[in-house]
């Protein structure tokens, strides 16, 4: 092969501008055995690449691989009914959650209905006499407590009066 073409291709190669065909051309040239002495430093590189492409797995790999794949395949087939059961159990889970939500919703609605009944409209006593007594009791309780409070408040007014007196005397 024309060695000036190899020069050109090599230059392109180092710049990373060669096409795959051109790279193959280089590899073929350096493997041909008729390499010019000035390429002696570069030739081993291309021969290395060519050699590297021959590295491979041992010949028994295929058999082992296929045996393995067939094994996983049979496992899968065996598992198929299991998958269906799994699907149903998933559906059952969803259904159970749905049921709980519906039941809970029903009870919550019942509770809300109870709350809607306004408390001051419902009667607590049937007998008006009894109701009157109860009301009286309640009012008495309130008035008793109210009076207690007023007693305490009276003390404060004495203080106020005293303060007023002191003020007026000071002004005099």
């Amino acid at each position, binding site marked *: 092969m024309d060695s000036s073409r190899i020069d050109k291709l090599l230059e392109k*190669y*180092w*710049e*990373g501008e060669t096409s*795959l065909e051109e*790279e*193959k051309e280089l590899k073929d040239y350096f493997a041909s055995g008729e390499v010019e002495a000035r390429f*002696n*430093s*570069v030739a*081993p*590189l291309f*021969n*290395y*690449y060519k*050699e*590297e*492409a*021959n*590295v*491979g*797995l*041992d010949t028994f*790999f*295929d058999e*082992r*691989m*296929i045996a*393995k*794949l*067939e094994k*996983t*395949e049979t496992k899968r087939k065996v598992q198929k009914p299991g998958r269906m059961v799994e699907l149903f159990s998933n559906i059952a889970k969803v259904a159970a959650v749905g049921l709980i939500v519906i039941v809970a919703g029903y009870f919550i609605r019942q509770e809300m209905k109870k709350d809607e009944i306004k408390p001051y409209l419902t009667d607590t006593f049937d007998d008006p006499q009894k109701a009157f007594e109860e009301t009286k009791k309640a009012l008495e309780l309130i008035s008793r407590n109210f009076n207690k409070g007023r007693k305490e408040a009276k003390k404060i007014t004495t203080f106020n009066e005293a303060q007023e007196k002191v003020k007026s005397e000071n002004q005099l």
Partner: protein
Amino acid sequence: MSLEAFKTRVLPVKDKLYRFAFKMLGDSEEAHDTVQEVMIKVWNKRDEMAQLENMEAWCMRITRNLSLDKLKSKKRKLTDSLEDSFEISQGEDLTPYRTVEMDDTMKNIGLMIAALPAKQKQIIQLRDVEGYSYKEIGDIMEIDMSQVKVNLFRARQAVKESILNINSYGLQ
């Protein structure tokens, strides 16, 4: 997708997935496990796969993400275990099922590429070893095309520089 279709469409990608996972994880055992996990994932999602335009890139993306997850959990587990981190950077276990022995220069190149920043290392692997287009690399790495180009350029510049170094110090 039937098992037959899986055999013809997905299984042939296994070596590419393995190489990518291996480059990221630096451990052939873990890369092997990762590819298995990817295959199982793909198998479980095979119904979605019918709509995919580029299934291979999709598988590569899953591989990348799984590898990243593994790296993360590894970092958590072995924060200060020097021995283990050594194992990653040492080139002894670099290529487990290699057909041809590499010479020292090629081994050195491998070590140098392994020492590149993660993004650049992955892009070199995807472009120069696997021969993916920029768009595919972008899809796999979930970055945009300009990012791919920039990182590829930087990676190639770094590779070029260290090749020149290897040469000028007479390490070849």
